[in-house]
């Protein structure tokens, strides 16, 4: 007997975390309720614990050597591949954005398209940033002296809320295009596009652990991320001023770099998470 549509039981998606290339549930087993723009229950994503954060840092740190040593060209290709994948999944993201943010179809579609373009824009930066931000320096001595920007290491990102996908993609692409690895805590209120985007990353040749996505409460995770000695920088764009202050206080132990951005499309998104290395090379010997 054929099953009519009304008889079929819905297969609902379990929204999970993205750590080390896998999609685990929170080790705490917790979830929280996300509401749509009208206040109705929409989904139960994982409520990440500090242990999940720690696992994500371990994954990010172990992915760092290979990702930062990959050629800039290769990193650019992979970011471009993410853009291709995002293009193909745009319909699903448009649906999620409309449900969460309550925007029009047109506005949601524009946001997704803008996110695709943003990925392409950051992909292009990967092999140009060293040319723009690096230099050969005049020195009075028999040395060839040059400075190049290098990725800082593991960056924790607290993504800003709306527009959810654009903020998420912009923060992430700027950080990883230079060779950093990232732990990104999605907006607590609008996490679904971030989770769907994790599925895009998982199928874009992005090595496991380069980007790790947590969903849950920024308030809960901020002190642990800020004091974690193995996180080198924090993009605090999504934090409240109180949370930012807390992060700055807890982050002094390893002189953590903490930055806030207002634009998704800006070279500072890349440069703020790089450090300049200067090399003196003797000449004439």
């Amino acid at each position, binding site marked *: 007997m054929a099953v009519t549509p009304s008889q079929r039981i819905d297969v609902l998606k379990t929204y999970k975390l993205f750590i080390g290339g896998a999609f685990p549930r929170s080790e705490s087993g917790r979830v929280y309720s996300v509401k749509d723009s009208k206040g109705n229950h929409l989904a139960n994503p994982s409520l990440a614990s500090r242990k999940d954060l720690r696992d994500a840092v371990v994954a990010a740190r172990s992915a760092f050597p290979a990702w930062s040593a990959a050629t800039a060209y290769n990193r650019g290709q992979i970011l471009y591949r993410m853009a291709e994948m995002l293009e193909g999944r745009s319909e699903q993201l448009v649906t999620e954005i409309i449900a969460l943010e309550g925007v029009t179809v047109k506005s949601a579609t524009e946001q997704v398209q803008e996110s695709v373009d943003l990925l392409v824009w950051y992909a292009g930066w990967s092999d140009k940033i060293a040319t723009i931000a690096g230099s050969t320096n005049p020195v009075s001595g028999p040395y060839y002296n040059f400075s190049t920007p290098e990725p800082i290491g593991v960056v924790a990102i607290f993504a800003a809320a709306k527009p959810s996908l654009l903020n998420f993609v912009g923060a992430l692409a700027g950080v990883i295009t230079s060779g950093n690895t990232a732990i990104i805590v999605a907006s607590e209120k609008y996490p679904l596009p971030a989770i769907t985007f994790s599925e895009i990353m998982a199928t874009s040749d992005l090595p496991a652990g380069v980007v790790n996505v947590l969903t849950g409460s920024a308030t809960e995770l901020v002190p642990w991320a800020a004091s*974690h*000695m193995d996180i080198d920088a924090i993009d605090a764009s999504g934090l409240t001023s109180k949370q930012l202050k807390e992060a700055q206080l*807890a982050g002094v132990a390893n002189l953590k770099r903490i930055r806030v951005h207002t634009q998704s499309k800006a070279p500072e998104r890349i440069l703020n998470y790089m450090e300049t290395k200067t090399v003196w090379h003797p000449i004439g010997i």
Partner: protein
Amino acid sequence: MITDTSEGSLKAFLKTLPQVDEVGASARAAMLATRSIKTSSKAWAIDMAISMVDLTTLEGADTPGKVRAICAKAVRPDATDLSVPSVGAVCVYNDMVHIARTSLDLIGGRAIPVAAVATAFPSGRASYAVKAQDTIDAINAGAAEIDMVIDRGAFLSGRYGEVFDEIVKIKELCGDKAHLKVILETGELVTLDNVRKASYLAMLAGADFIKTSTGKVTPAATAPVVFVMLEAVRDYYSMTQTRIGVKPAGGIRNTKDAIKQLVLVNEVAGPEWLNPQLFRIGASALLNDLLLQRMKLRDGYYASPSYVTLD
């Protein structure tokens, strides 16, 4: 227990050992691994584990410089925290023993023994003359512990007498100058029954310690294997009133694994074995993770591998 150590009598004795219930042993070991050890118990366990580490470097690329670095770390695992205990021993190849001994003596590590792997480690495939010379060399260079490998080929072919006699002879060479650890290389013994048999063979032949693996073969120190070996030393103690030590080696890379081992020791062999004289962990990467976990407990925030030495 047995007085006649001829091949026939050894075989007869080993046959009397009860068979290991593989499923039961794995289940029991897995169940004990779920114990949650936190806060002050964890702090105690980390320090205990550090003092049990046989800090090991067994690479073809070992240099005197690397051995000296390992020795410095053995004495003061964390240079920024003097309350961290020294490790149990430094474990190196034969030709590095002298360098390890002298550098330990120079930097206040007189109490830390040097363990040498001997008898054609890791395969054990050499003539007895070579194995004996290997052992004598190491002892003369200052090794206080000899980690010998058994002849797995002979054991698996059922030539127990040969394996037994070799251990007895190496034990004689060690005399009272060195402790003898016998490496069973459980990854090549196939079954837990064989692990039990080999454990008894080594203990009867005079081993001071039985050690799981060389670290060159996987699987190495799995929980069921360590479980069976701990049972063996416990039962041997009840038969002979002699306590034999156990040393798992290989594959124990983080604090969680190490604490699981300590739980096994406490629950299977008993708390008497919870000391570096009777339980050691052969490891290299483990020590850094123990130090990081120790920092986390001390400081209250997560530590970074950038703050411990690379080795």
